[in-house]
Protein backbone atom coordinates (compact mmCIF):
# COMPACT_ATOMS: atom_id res chain seq x y z
CA UNK A 1 0.00 0.00 0.00
CA UNK A 2 1.39 3.39 -0.92
CA UNK A 3 1.63 6.17 1.62
CA UNK A 4 -1.02 8.11 -0.28
CA UNK A 5 -3.48 5.26 -0.13
CA UNK A 6 -2.79 4.68 3.50
CA UNK A 7 -3.49 8.35 4.15
CA UNK A 8 -6.82 8.14 2.34
CA UNK A 9 -7.79 5.08 4.34
CA UNK A 10 -6.78 6.63 7.68
CA UNK A 11 -8.58 9.83 6.79
CA UNK A 12 -11.83 8.00 6.19
CA UNK A 13 -11.27 5.83 9.25
CA UNK A 14 -10.88 8.80 11.57
CA UNK A 15 -13.77 10.73 10.07
CA UNK A 16 -16.09 7.73 9.88
CA UNK A 17 -18.05 8.74 13.01
CA UNK A 18 -18.84 12.01 11.30
CA UNK A 19 -20.20 10.27 8.22
CA UNK A 20 -22.46 8.09 10.38
CA UNK A 21 -23.58 11.16 12.32
CA UNK A 22 -24.21 13.06 9.11
CA UNK A 23 -26.62 10.45 7.82
CA UNK A 24 -28.28 9.83 11.17
CA UNK A 25 -28.70 13.35 12.49
CA UNK A 26 -28.11 15.89 9.79
CA UNK A 27 -29.02 14.68 6.34
CA UNK A 28 -32.75 14.30 6.95
CA UNK A 29 -33.35 17.62 8.73
CA UNK A 30 -31.14 19.38 6.21
CA UNK A 31 -32.88 17.96 3.16
CA UNK A 32 -36.28 18.61 4.70
CA UNK A 33 -35.34 22.20 5.39
CA UNK A 34 -34.08 22.72 1.84
CA UNK A 35 -37.18 21.08 0.41
CA UNK A 36 -39.34 23.26 2.61
CA UNK A 37 -37.71 26.38 1.21
CA UNK A 38 -39.04 25.43 -2.24
CA UNK A 39 -42.46 24.38 -1.05
CA UNK A 40 -45.63 25.36 0.65
CA UNK A 41 -47.03 23.55 3.63
CA UNK A 42 -50.40 22.04 2.80
CA UNK A 43 -51.00 20.13 5.99
CA UNK A 44 -49.18 21.17 9.13
CA UNK A 45 -50.18 18.23 11.33
CA UNK A 46 -48.82 15.70 8.86
CA UNK A 47 -46.04 18.04 7.80
CA UNK A 48 -46.99 17.66 4.13
CA UNK A 49 -45.76 20.10 1.55
CA UNK A 50 -46.30 20.97 -2.11
CA UNK A 51 -43.50 22.02 -4.40
CA UNK A 52 -43.72 25.68 -5.42
CA UNK A 53 -40.31 26.27 -6.95
CA UNK A 54 -38.68 29.61 -6.33
CA UNK A 55 -41.86 31.35 -5.14
CA UNK A 56 -40.65 31.84 -1.59
CA UNK A 57 -37.39 33.34 -2.77
CA UNK A 58 -39.15 35.57 -5.24
CA UNK A 59 -41.41 36.80 -2.45
CA UNK A 60 -38.39 37.74 -0.35
CA UNK A 61 -37.11 39.94 -3.18
CA UNK A 62 -40.39 41.31 -4.42
CA UNK A 63 -42.65 41.72 -1.40
CA UNK A 64 -40.67 41.60 1.78
CA UNK A 65 -39.57 45.09 2.70
CA UNK A 66 -38.13 44.13 6.07
CA UNK A 67 -35.72 41.33 5.22
CA UNK A 68 -33.03 43.05 3.19
CA UNK A 69 -32.56 46.09 5.44
CA UNK A 70 -32.17 43.68 8.36
CA UNK A 71 -29.66 41.69 6.34
CA UNK A 72 -27.55 44.78 5.66
CA UNK A 73 -27.79 45.76 9.28
CA UNK A 74 -26.51 42.43 10.47
CA UNK A 75 -23.60 42.49 8.03
CA UNK A 76 -22.70 45.96 9.29
CA UNK A 77 -22.84 44.79 12.89
CA UNK A 78 -20.65 41.83 12.11
CA UNK A 79 -18.06 44.00 10.36
CA UNK A 80 -17.98 46.39 13.30
CA UNK A 81 -17.92 43.81 16.08
CA UNK A 82 -15.62 41.10 14.82
CA UNK A 83 -12.29 42.96 14.74
CA UNK A 84 -12.97 44.58 18.12
CA UNK A 85 -13.95 41.30 19.76
CA UNK A 86 -10.96 39.44 18.34
CA UNK A 87 -8.42 42.10 19.32
CA UNK A 88 -9.96 42.64 22.74
CA UNK A 89 -10.09 38.95 23.57
CA UNK A 90 -6.49 38.45 22.46
CA UNK A 91 -5.49 41.35 24.68
CA UNK A 92 -7.32 39.94 27.70
CA UNK A 93 -6.03 36.43 27.05
CA UNK A 94 -2.46 37.75 27.02
CA UNK A 95 -3.06 39.59 30.29
CA UNK A 96 -4.56 36.46 31.86
CA UNK A 97 -1.65 34.38 30.64
CA UNK A 98 0.81 36.44 32.69
CA UNK A 99 1.97 35.31 36.06
CA UNK A 100 -0.39 37.28 38.23
CA UNK A 101 -2.09 36.63 41.50
CA UNK A 102 -5.75 35.68 41.47
CA UNK A 103 -5.49 34.50 37.87
CA UNK A 104 -8.11 31.83 38.49
CA UNK A 105 -10.61 34.35 39.79
CA UNK A 106 -10.10 36.63 36.82
CA UNK A 107 -10.57 33.73 34.45
CA UNK A 108 -13.83 32.83 36.10
CA UNK A 109 -14.95 36.45 36.06
CA UNK A 110 -14.42 36.82 32.32
CA UNK A 111 -16.45 33.76 31.58
CA UNK A 112 -19.33 34.76 33.85
CA UNK A 113 -21.46 36.44 31.19
CA UNK A 114 -21.10 33.35 29.04
CA UNK A 115 -21.96 31.09 31.94
CA UNK A 116 -25.05 33.19 32.45
CA UNK A 117 -25.69 34.66 29.07
CA UNK A 118 -26.34 31.58 27.02
CA UNK A 119 -29.00 30.35 29.37
CA UNK A 120 -32.32 31.54 30.51
CA UNK A 121 -30.83 33.14 33.61
CA UNK A 122 -29.88 36.25 31.74
CA UNK A 123 -33.35 36.56 30.27
CA UNK A 124 -34.76 35.94 33.68
CA UNK A 125 -32.86 38.77 35.24
CA UNK A 126 -32.99 40.97 32.23
CA UNK A 127 -36.28 40.79 30.48
CA UNK A 128 -39.14 39.35 32.38
CA UNK A 129 -38.91 41.31 35.53
CA UNK A 130 -38.42 44.78 34.29
CA UNK A 131 -34.98 45.02 35.78
CA UNK A 132 -34.37 47.41 32.95
CA UNK A 133 -34.59 50.12 35.54
CA UNK A 134 -31.22 48.97 36.80
CA UNK A 135 -29.74 52.20 35.49
CA UNK A 136 -31.02 54.00 38.53
CA UNK A 137 -29.28 51.41 40.64
CA UNK A 138 -25.98 52.17 39.03
CA UNK A 139 -26.44 55.84 39.66
CA UNK A 140 -26.84 56.73 36.04
CA UNK A 141 -29.25 58.47 33.77
CA UNK A 142 -32.40 56.44 33.60
CA UNK A 143 -34.46 58.69 31.41
CA UNK A 144 -35.00 58.19 27.73
CA UNK A 145 -33.16 55.92 25.37
CA UNK A 146 -29.89 56.77 27.05
CA UNK A 147 -30.64 54.69 30.14
CA UNK A 148 -28.22 51.89 30.86
CA UNK A 149 -29.41 48.34 31.01
CA UNK A 150 -28.37 45.63 33.37
CA UNK A 151 -24.65 45.27 33.61
CA UNK A 152 -23.87 48.12 31.31
CA UNK A 153 -21.52 50.85 32.23
CA UNK A 154 -23.75 53.67 33.37
CA UNK A 155 -23.22 57.40 33.26
CA UNK A 156 -23.32 59.35 36.43
CA UNK A 157 -26.13 61.82 37.18
CA UNK A 158 -23.69 64.68 37.50
CA UNK A 159 -22.21 64.00 34.13
CA UNK A 160 -25.67 64.19 32.59
CA UNK A 161 -26.32 67.63 34.06
CA UNK A 162 -22.87 68.65 32.93
CA UNK A 163 -22.95 67.60 29.29
CA UNK A 164 -26.68 67.58 28.68
CA UNK A 165 -29.06 64.73 27.95
CA UNK A 166 -28.32 64.46 24.21
CA UNK A 167 -24.59 64.05 24.61
CA UNK A 168 -25.19 61.74 27.55
CA UNK A 169 -27.45 59.66 25.33
CA UNK A 170 -24.71 59.26 22.74
CA UNK A 171 -22.14 58.46 25.39
CA UNK A 172 -24.47 55.88 26.86
CA UNK A 173 -24.96 54.32 23.44
CA UNK A 174 -21.20 54.02 23.03
CA UNK A 175 -20.82 52.49 26.48
CA UNK A 176 -23.65 50.10 25.74
CA UNK A 177 -21.84 48.96 22.63
CA UNK A 178 -18.66 48.51 24.64
CA UNK A 179 -20.32 46.33 27.29
CA UNK A 180 -22.04 44.35 24.58
CA UNK A 181 -18.73 43.65 22.89
CA UNK A 182 -17.06 42.79 26.18
CA UNK A 183 -19.82 40.33 26.87
CA UNK A 184 -19.41 38.70 23.51
CA UNK A 185 -15.77 37.79 24.12
CA UNK A 186 -15.89 35.16 26.88
CA UNK A 187 -15.53 32.10 24.64
CA UNK A 188 -12.89 33.79 22.53
CA UNK A 189 -10.83 34.57 25.62
CA UNK A 190 -10.92 30.91 26.68
CA UNK A 191 -9.96 29.69 23.22
CA UNK A 192 -7.07 32.12 22.92
CA UNK A 193 -5.90 31.46 26.46
CA UNK A 194 -5.78 27.77 25.69
CA UNK A 195 -3.74 28.45 22.58
CA UNK A 196 -1.32 30.80 24.36
CA UNK A 197 -0.65 28.09 26.89
CA UNK A 198 0.45 25.62 24.25
CA UNK A 199 3.26 27.84 23.01
CA UNK A 200 6.40 26.00 24.17
CA UNK A 201 8.39 28.07 26.65
CA UNK A 202 11.73 27.28 24.93
CA UNK A 203 10.59 29.55 22.09
CA UNK A 204 10.37 32.49 24.44
CA UNK A 205 13.68 31.56 26.04
CA UNK A 206 15.30 31.47 22.62
CA UNK A 207 13.79 34.86 21.81
CA UNK A 208 15.09 36.20 25.11
CA UNK A 209 18.58 34.95 24.33
CA UNK A 210 18.43 36.78 21.03
CA UNK A 211 17.55 39.92 22.93
CA UNK A 212 13.95 40.29 21.79
CA UNK A 213 11.81 42.83 23.61
CA UNK A 214 8.31 42.01 24.87
CA UNK A 215 6.90 43.79 21.85
CA UNK A 216 9.04 41.81 19.43
CA UNK A 217 8.22 38.58 21.24
CA UNK A 218 4.54 39.28 20.70
CA UNK A 219 4.88 39.89 16.98
CA UNK A 220 7.49 37.25 16.23
CA UNK A 221 6.57 34.38 18.55
CA UNK A 222 3.13 34.77 20.12
CA UNK A 223 1.16 36.02 17.14
CA UNK A 224 2.39 33.56 14.47
CA UNK A 225 1.87 30.61 16.81
CA UNK A 226 -1.60 31.82 17.78
CA UNK A 227 -2.75 32.44 14.21
CA UNK A 228 -4.57 29.08 13.83
CA UNK A 229 -6.61 29.94 16.89
CA UNK A 230 -7.13 33.52 15.75
CA UNK A 231 -8.64 32.12 12.57
CA UNK A 232 -10.87 29.90 14.68
CA UNK A 233 -11.87 32.79 16.92
CA UNK A 234 -12.60 35.05 13.96
CA UNK A 235 -14.81 32.46 12.30
CA UNK A 236 -16.55 31.80 15.61
CA UNK A 237 -17.14 35.51 16.20
CA UNK A 238 -18.55 35.99 12.71
CA UNK A 239 -20.91 33.05 13.14
CA UNK A 240 -21.85 34.15 16.63
CA UNK A 241 -22.62 37.64 15.43
CA UNK A 242 -24.76 36.31 12.58
CA UNK A 243 -26.65 33.61 14.45
CA UNK A 244 -27.08 34.82 18.02
CA UNK A 245 -30.66 35.04 19.20
CA UNK A 246 -30.28 38.84 19.39
CA UNK A 247 -29.50 39.14 15.71
CA UNK A 248 -32.22 41.02 13.82
CA UNK A 249 -32.41 38.60 10.90
CA UNK A 250 -32.57 35.55 13.17
CA UNK A 251 -35.30 37.22 15.19
CA UNK A 252 -37.20 38.06 12.06
CA UNK A 253 -36.88 34.53 10.69
CA UNK A 254 -37.93 32.99 13.99
CA UNK A 255 -40.90 35.34 14.05
CA UNK A 256 -41.91 34.42 10.51
CA UNK A 257 -41.49 30.69 11.12
CA UNK A 258 -43.00 30.27 14.53
CA UNK A 259 -45.11 33.28 15.44
CA UNK A 260 -46.71 33.58 12.00
CA UNK A 261 -46.19 29.89 11.40
CA UNK A 262 -45.02 30.46 7.87
CA UNK A 263 -42.39 27.73 8.05
CA UNK A 264 -41.78 27.48 4.31
CA UNK A 265 -41.08 31.17 3.85
CA UNK A 266 -38.94 31.18 7.01
CA UNK A 267 -36.93 28.31 5.61
CA UNK A 268 -36.36 30.13 2.31
CA UNK A 269 -35.22 33.23 4.18
CA UNK A 270 -32.87 31.18 6.35
CA UNK A 271 -31.26 29.52 3.37
CA UNK A 272 -30.59 32.84 1.72
CA UNK A 273 -29.14 34.01 4.99
CA UNK A 274 -26.92 30.93 5.37
CA UNK A 275 -25.66 31.42 1.85
CA UNK A 276 -24.60 34.94 2.77
CA UNK A 277 -22.98 33.80 6.04
CA UNK A 278 -21.22 31.00 4.17
CA UNK A 279 -19.80 33.47 1.65
CA UNK A 280 -18.57 35.71 4.45
CA UNK A 281 -16.89 32.74 6.17
CA UNK A 282 -15.27 31.69 2.91
CA UNK A 283 -13.96 35.22 2.55
CA UNK A 284 -12.51 35.06 6.09
CA UNK A 285 -10.72 31.82 5.26
CA UNK A 286 -9.45 33.22 1.98
CA UNK A 287 -8.17 36.44 3.58
CA UNK A 288 -6.51 34.70 6.49
CA UNK A 289 -5.12 31.71 4.62
CA UNK A 290 -1.84 33.37 3.75
CA UNK A 291 -1.30 34.63 7.27
CA UNK A 292 -2.05 31.41 9.11
CA UNK A 293 0.90 29.15 9.57
CA UNK A 294 0.54 25.62 10.90
CA UNK A 295 3.44 23.89 12.63
CA UNK A 296 2.20 20.51 11.46
CA UNK A 297 1.69 21.44 7.82
CA UNK A 298 3.61 19.22 5.46
Amino acid at each position, binding site marked *: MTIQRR*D*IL*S*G*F*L*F*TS*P*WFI*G*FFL*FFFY*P*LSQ*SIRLAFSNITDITE*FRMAWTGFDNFANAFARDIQFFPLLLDSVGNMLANTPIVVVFSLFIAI*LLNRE*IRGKGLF*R*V*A*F*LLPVLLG*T*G*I*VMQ*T*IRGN*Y*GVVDISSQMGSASTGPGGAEL*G*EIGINHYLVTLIGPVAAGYLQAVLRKVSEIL*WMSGIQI*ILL*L*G*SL*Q*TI*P*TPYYEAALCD*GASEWEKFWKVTLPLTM*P*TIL*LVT*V*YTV*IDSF*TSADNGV*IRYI*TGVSFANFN*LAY*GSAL*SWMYFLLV*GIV*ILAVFAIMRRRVFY*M*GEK
Partner: protein
Amino acid sequence: MEMRKNGSPGSGRGGWTAALANRVRAGDLQESALYVAARKRVSRLLVNALVYALLVEFVFVFVFPYLYMVINSLKYDFDIRSANTQWIITRFNFYNYSQAISDLRYVEGLLNNLMAAFGSTLGHVASASLIAYGLARFRFPGRNLVFSIVILTLIIPPNLLLIPMYIQFARMGQALGTSLIGTLWPILLPTFFGFGLKGGLFIFIFRQYFKGLPASYEEAAKIEGCGPLRIFLTIILPLSKTGVLVVAILSTMWHWNDYFEPIIYLKGPSTLLFQRIVNIQVWRGVYTAAGNYINPVVLAACVLITAPLLLIYFVFQKQFMKGIEFTGLAN
Protein backbone atom coordinates in the same frame (compact mmCIF):
# COMPACT_ATOMS: atom_id res chain seq x y z
CA MET B 1 30.95 39.89 29.03
CA GLU B 2 32.19 40.90 32.41
CA MET B 3 28.73 42.17 33.18
CA ARG B 4 27.15 38.76 32.69
CA LYS B 5 29.53 37.18 35.18
CA ASN B 6 28.56 39.73 37.76
CA GLY B 7 25.05 38.47 37.88
CA SER B 8 22.79 40.67 35.88
CA PRO B 9 21.37 38.33 33.29
CA GLY B 10 18.15 38.87 31.49
CA SER B 11 18.64 42.46 30.49
CA GLY B 12 18.04 42.91 26.80
CA ARG B 13 20.99 43.61 24.53
CA GLY B 14 20.32 46.80 22.59
CA GLY B 15 20.53 50.08 24.42
CA TRP B 16 20.74 48.59 27.87
CA THR B 17 23.86 46.57 27.33
CA ALA B 18 25.49 49.37 25.41
CA ALA B 19 24.90 51.72 28.32
CA LEU B 20 26.13 49.06 30.69
CA ALA B 21 29.27 48.49 28.70
CA ASN B 22 30.09 52.19 28.93
CA ARG B 23 29.63 52.11 32.66
CA VAL B 24 31.72 48.99 32.96
CA ARG B 25 34.48 50.73 31.11
CA ALA B 26 34.06 53.71 33.37
CA GLY B 27 34.66 51.41 36.27
CA ASP B 28 31.58 51.73 38.46
CA LEU B 29 30.34 48.25 37.75
CA GLN B 30 28.58 47.69 41.03
CA GLU B 31 26.46 50.80 40.85
CA SER B 32 25.25 50.21 37.34
CA ALA B 33 24.18 46.63 38.09
CA LEU B 34 22.15 47.85 41.04
CA TYR B 35 20.71 50.64 38.95
CA VAL B 36 19.56 48.24 36.24
CA ALA B 37 18.07 45.83 38.75
CA ALA B 38 16.13 48.64 40.41
CA ARG B 39 14.92 50.03 37.10
CA LYS B 40 13.76 46.60 36.09
CA ARG B 41 11.92 45.99 39.31
CA VAL B 42 10.15 49.33 39.12
CA SER B 43 9.08 48.82 35.53
CA ARG B 44 7.81 45.33 36.29
CA LEU B 45 5.85 46.72 39.24
CA LEU B 46 4.35 49.41 37.04
CA VAL B 47 3.36 46.94 34.35
CA ASN B 48 1.76 44.66 36.90
CA ALA B 49 -0.15 47.54 38.48
CA LEU B 50 -1.44 48.49 35.04
CA VAL B 51 -2.46 44.91 34.29
CA TYR B 52 -4.38 44.69 37.54
CA ALA B 53 -6.08 48.03 37.02
CA LEU B 54 -7.21 46.98 33.56
CA LEU B 55 -8.38 43.56 34.64
CA VAL B 56 -10.33 44.88 37.60
CA GLU B 57 -11.92 47.49 35.38
CA PHE B 58 -13.11 44.93 32.84
CA VAL B 59 -14.03 42.40 35.47
CA PHE B 60 -16.55 44.82 36.90
CA VAL B 61 -18.54 44.79 33.70
CA PHE B 62 -18.43 41.01 33.65
CA VAL B 63 -19.22 40.35 37.28
CA PHE B 64 -21.93 42.93 37.65
CA PRO B 65 -24.97 40.87 36.59
CA TYR B 66 -23.96 37.94 38.73
CA LEU B 67 -23.39 40.12 41.74
CA TYR B 68 -26.73 41.72 41.15
CA MET B 69 -28.39 38.34 41.02
CA VAL B 70 -26.75 37.04 44.19
CA ILE B 71 -27.54 40.14 46.19
CA ASN B 72 -31.18 40.27 45.18
CA SER B 73 -31.63 36.58 45.81
CA LEU B 74 -30.87 37.20 49.48
CA LYS B 75 -33.34 40.02 49.95
CA TYR B 76 -36.71 40.25 51.60
CA ASP B 77 -39.52 41.90 49.73
CA PHE B 78 -39.17 45.17 51.56
CA ASP B 79 -35.51 45.47 50.52
CA ILE B 80 -36.36 44.77 46.92
CA ARG B 81 -39.08 47.37 46.84
CA SER B 82 -37.07 49.91 48.71
CA ALA B 83 -35.78 52.72 46.54
CA ASN B 84 -32.82 53.48 48.79
CA THR B 85 -31.12 50.17 49.20
CA GLN B 86 -30.22 48.69 45.86
CA TRP B 87 -27.00 47.02 46.90
CA ILE B 88 -27.52 46.78 50.63
CA ILE B 89 -29.34 43.98 52.37
CA THR B 90 -30.78 45.03 55.70
CA ARG B 91 -31.81 41.48 56.58
CA PHE B 92 -30.60 38.32 54.91
CA ASN B 93 -33.29 36.01 53.65
CA PHE B 94 -32.03 32.47 53.24
CA TYR B 95 -35.57 31.21 53.02
CA ASN B 96 -35.51 32.09 49.29
CA TYR B 97 -32.93 29.39 48.80
CA SER B 98 -34.75 26.62 50.62
CA GLN B 99 -37.86 27.59 48.71
CA ALA B 100 -35.99 27.47 45.40
CA ILE B 101 -34.48 24.08 46.23
CA SER B 102 -37.86 22.54 46.86
CA ASP B 103 -39.54 24.28 43.92
CA LEU B 104 -36.86 23.13 41.52
CA ARG B 105 -36.67 19.62 43.01
CA TYR B 106 -33.04 20.59 42.91
CA VAL B 107 -31.27 17.30 43.63
CA GLU B 108 -33.14 15.37 40.95
CA GLY B 109 -32.65 18.18 38.44
CA LEU B 110 -29.00 18.54 39.29
CA LEU B 111 -28.38 14.85 38.66
CA ASN B 112 -30.08 15.16 35.27
CA ASN B 113 -27.98 18.19 34.46
CA LEU B 114 -24.77 16.44 35.43
CA MET B 115 -25.67 13.43 33.32
CA ALA B 116 -26.57 15.50 30.27
CA ALA B 117 -23.53 17.76 30.57
CA PHE B 118 -20.91 15.12 31.29
CA GLY B 119 -22.34 12.55 28.89
CA SER B 120 -22.33 14.97 26.01
CA THR B 121 -18.93 16.37 26.96
CA LEU B 122 -17.50 12.87 26.83
CA GLY B 123 -19.15 12.34 23.46
CA HIS B 124 -17.86 15.61 22.06
CA VAL B 125 -14.29 15.15 23.25
CA ALA B 126 -14.12 11.59 21.92
CA SER B 127 -15.78 12.14 18.55
CA ALA B 128 -14.58 15.65 17.72
CA SER B 129 -10.94 14.79 18.43
CA LEU B 130 -11.03 11.69 16.21
CA ILE B 131 -12.77 13.44 13.34
CA ALA B 132 -10.57 16.51 13.61
CA TYR B 133 -7.41 14.40 13.54
CA GLY B 134 -8.62 12.81 10.34
CA LEU B 135 -9.26 16.26 8.86
CA ALA B 136 -6.03 17.79 10.09
CA ARG B 137 -3.48 15.14 9.17
CA PHE B 138 -4.67 13.03 6.25
CA ARG B 139 -5.36 13.98 2.68
CA PHE B 140 -8.38 12.15 1.36
CA PRO B 141 -10.91 12.97 -1.35
CA GLY B 142 -13.78 15.04 -0.02
CA ARG B 143 -11.85 16.39 2.95
CA ASN B 144 -12.65 20.00 2.15
CA LEU B 145 -16.29 19.15 1.54
CA VAL B 146 -16.52 17.46 4.95
CA PHE B 147 -14.91 20.46 6.60
CA SER B 148 -17.30 22.83 4.80
CA ILE B 149 -20.30 20.87 6.04
CA VAL B 150 -18.82 20.93 9.55
CA ILE B 151 -18.79 24.72 9.30
CA LEU B 152 -22.31 24.66 7.86
CA THR B 153 -23.57 22.77 10.92
CA LEU B 154 -22.25 25.68 12.93
CA ILE B 155 -23.96 28.30 10.82
CA ILE B 156 -27.42 26.75 10.99
CA PRO B 157 -29.03 27.55 14.35
CA PRO B 158 -30.49 24.33 15.78
CA ASN B 159 -33.97 25.77 16.17
CA LEU B 160 -34.37 26.02 12.41
CA LEU B 161 -34.03 22.26 12.05
CA LEU B 162 -36.28 21.68 15.01
CA ILE B 163 -39.29 19.97 13.48
CA PRO B 164 -37.55 17.52 11.13
CA MET B 165 -35.10 16.71 13.91
CA TYR B 166 -37.93 15.83 16.24
CA ILE B 167 -39.55 13.67 13.58
CA GLN B 168 -36.22 11.94 12.97
CA PHE B 169 -35.83 11.00 16.62
CA ALA B 170 -39.44 9.86 16.88
CA ARG B 171 -38.86 7.58 13.88
CA MET B 172 -35.60 6.28 15.25
CA GLY B 173 -37.38 5.42 18.47
CA GLN B 174 -40.04 3.55 16.54
CA ALA B 175 -37.41 1.64 14.62
CA LEU B 176 -35.73 0.66 17.88
CA GLY B 177 -39.01 -0.24 19.51
CA THR B 178 -38.79 2.38 22.26
CA SER B 179 -39.45 6.05 22.56
CA LEU B 180 -36.38 8.28 22.45
CA ILE B 181 -38.47 11.37 23.06
CA GLY B 182 -38.60 12.11 26.76
CA THR B 183 -35.15 10.65 27.41
CA LEU B 184 -31.68 12.17 27.29
CA TRP B 185 -30.72 10.17 24.18
CA PRO B 186 -31.67 12.81 21.56
CA ILE B 187 -29.29 15.16 23.35
CA LEU B 188 -26.49 12.67 24.03
CA LEU B 189 -26.45 10.50 20.92
CA PRO B 190 -25.44 13.11 18.29
CA THR B 191 -22.49 14.25 20.42
CA PHE B 192 -20.81 10.87 19.94
CA PHE B 193 -20.74 11.44 16.18
CA GLY B 194 -19.44 14.99 16.10
CA PHE B 195 -22.89 16.55 15.91
CA GLY B 196 -25.15 17.81 18.66
CA LEU B 197 -24.93 21.20 20.32
CA LYS B 198 -22.03 23.11 18.67
CA GLY B 199 -20.46 19.80 17.63
CA GLY B 200 -18.99 21.42 14.54
CA LEU B 201 -17.19 24.02 16.61
CA PHE B 202 -15.45 21.34 18.65
CA ILE B 203 -14.24 19.62 15.50
CA PHE B 204 -12.96 22.98 14.31
CA ILE B 205 -11.20 23.65 17.64
CA PHE B 206 -9.45 20.29 17.61
CA ARG B 207 -8.52 20.65 13.95
CA GLN B 208 -6.76 23.93 14.64
CA TYR B 209 -4.94 22.45 17.64
CA PHE B 210 -3.77 19.37 15.79
CA LYS B 211 -2.62 21.36 12.79
CA GLY B 212 -0.56 23.47 15.16
CA LEU B 213 1.30 20.46 16.55
CA PRO B 214 4.68 19.77 14.92
CA ALA B 215 4.54 16.70 12.69
CA SER B 216 7.91 15.44 13.94
CA TYR B 217 6.41 13.44 16.82
CA GLU B 218 4.25 11.38 14.51
CA GLU B 219 7.00 10.88 11.98
CA ALA B 220 9.26 9.44 14.64
CA ALA B 221 6.50 7.10 15.79
CA LYS B 222 5.69 6.13 12.21
CA ILE B 223 9.29 5.13 11.59
CA GLU B 224 9.04 2.87 14.60
CA GLY B 225 6.03 1.21 13.02
CA CYS B 226 3.21 2.73 15.06
CA GLY B 227 -0.27 2.63 13.49
CA PRO B 228 -2.23 5.88 13.08
CA LEU B 229 -4.78 5.07 15.77
CA ARG B 230 -2.07 4.27 18.26
CA ILE B 231 -0.18 7.43 17.35
CA PHE B 232 -3.36 9.38 17.92
CA LEU B 233 -4.12 7.82 21.30
CA THR B 234 -0.64 7.70 22.76
CA ILE B 235 1.04 10.76 21.26
CA ILE B 236 -1.39 13.29 19.87
CA LEU B 237 -4.12 13.18 22.50
CA PRO B 238 -1.79 13.53 25.50
CA LEU B 239 -0.06 16.45 23.74
CA SER B 240 -3.38 18.22 23.19
CA LYS B 241 -4.41 18.28 26.81
CA THR B 242 -5.18 21.97 26.61
CA GLY B 243 -7.38 21.48 23.57
CA VAL B 244 -9.27 18.68 25.32
CA LEU B 245 -9.70 20.92 28.34
CA VAL B 246 -11.07 23.82 26.31
CA VAL B 247 -13.54 21.60 24.49
CA ALA B 248 -14.60 19.94 27.75
CA ILE B 249 -15.19 23.31 29.42
CA LEU B 250 -17.19 24.70 26.53
CA SER B 251 -19.25 21.58 25.95
CA THR B 252 -20.12 21.24 29.62
CA MET B 253 -21.06 24.88 29.81
CA TRP B 254 -23.23 24.94 26.72
CA HIS B 255 -25.07 21.79 27.64
CA TRP B 256 -25.59 23.03 31.16
CA ASN B 257 -27.08 26.25 29.93
CA ASP B 258 -28.92 24.93 26.93
CA TYR B 259 -32.60 25.49 27.05
CA PHE B 260 -33.64 24.70 23.56
CA GLU B 261 -32.91 20.99 23.11
CA PRO B 262 -34.16 19.94 26.56
CA ILE B 263 -37.44 21.77 26.20
CA ILE B 264 -38.21 19.86 22.99
CA TYR B 265 -37.02 16.42 23.98
CA LEU B 266 -37.39 16.14 27.74
CA LYS B 267 -40.37 16.01 30.01
CA GLY B 268 -41.44 14.93 33.48
CA PRO B 269 -38.76 13.84 35.93
CA SER B 270 -36.01 13.86 33.32
CA THR B 271 -36.18 17.63 32.81
CA LEU B 272 -33.14 19.79 33.37
CA LEU B 273 -32.87 22.61 35.85
CA PHE B 274 -33.48 25.43 33.43
CA GLN B 275 -36.78 23.95 32.38
CA ARG B 276 -37.87 23.80 35.97
CA ILE B 277 -37.33 27.47 36.52
CA VAL B 278 -40.28 28.13 34.27
CA ASN B 279 -42.44 26.19 36.69
CA ILE B 280 -41.43 28.50 39.48
CA GLN B 281 -42.27 31.46 37.33
CA VAL B 282 -45.69 30.09 36.63
CA TRP B 283 -46.40 28.97 40.18
CA ARG B 284 -45.34 32.19 41.72
CA GLY B 285 -47.35 34.20 39.27
CA VAL B 286 -44.32 36.19 38.30
CA TYR B 287 -45.63 36.83 34.83
CA THR B 288 -48.67 38.62 36.15
CA ALA B 289 -46.65 40.91 38.35
CA ALA B 290 -45.63 43.40 35.71
CA GLY B 291 -43.35 46.31 36.36
CA ASN B 292 -40.33 46.65 38.52
CA TYR B 293 -40.63 43.56 40.54
CA ILE B 294 -37.86 41.08 41.01
CA ASN B 295 -38.73 37.69 42.35
CA PRO B 296 -36.01 36.71 44.82
CA VAL B 297 -36.92 33.02 44.68
CA VAL B 298 -36.35 32.94 40.92
CA LEU B 299 -33.03 34.69 41.38
CA ALA B 300 -32.08 32.23 44.12
CA ALA B 301 -32.93 29.43 41.69
CA CYS B 302 -30.69 31.06 39.08
CA VAL B 303 -27.84 31.18 41.56
CA LEU B 304 -28.41 27.54 42.49
CA ILE B 305 -28.39 26.48 38.84
CA THR B 306 -25.25 28.34 37.88
CA ALA B 307 -23.24 27.69 41.05
CA PRO B 308 -22.26 24.06 40.23
CA LEU B 309 -21.17 25.18 36.78
CA LEU B 310 -19.00 27.91 38.27
CA LEU B 311 -17.45 25.38 40.60
CA ILE B 312 -16.79 22.93 37.75
CA TYR B 313 -15.21 25.64 35.68
CA PHE B 314 -13.08 26.86 38.56
CA VAL B 315 -11.69 23.36 39.04
CA PHE B 316 -11.17 22.86 35.29
CA GLN B 317 -9.32 26.10 34.72
CA LYS B 318 -6.71 25.19 37.33
CA GLN B 319 -5.72 22.35 35.04
CA PHE B 320 -4.70 24.94 32.49
CA MET B 321 -1.54 25.53 34.47
CA LYS B 322 -0.61 21.87 34.34
CA GLY B 323 -1.18 21.99 30.62
CA ILE B 324 1.69 24.44 30.18
CA GLU B 325 4.17 22.48 32.24
CA PHE B 326 3.37 19.41 30.26
CA THR B 327 3.89 20.88 26.82
CA GLY B 328 6.93 22.71 28.12
CA LEU B 329 8.54 19.43 29.11
CA ALA B 330 7.53 17.61 25.97
CA ASN B 331 9.29 20.16 23.85
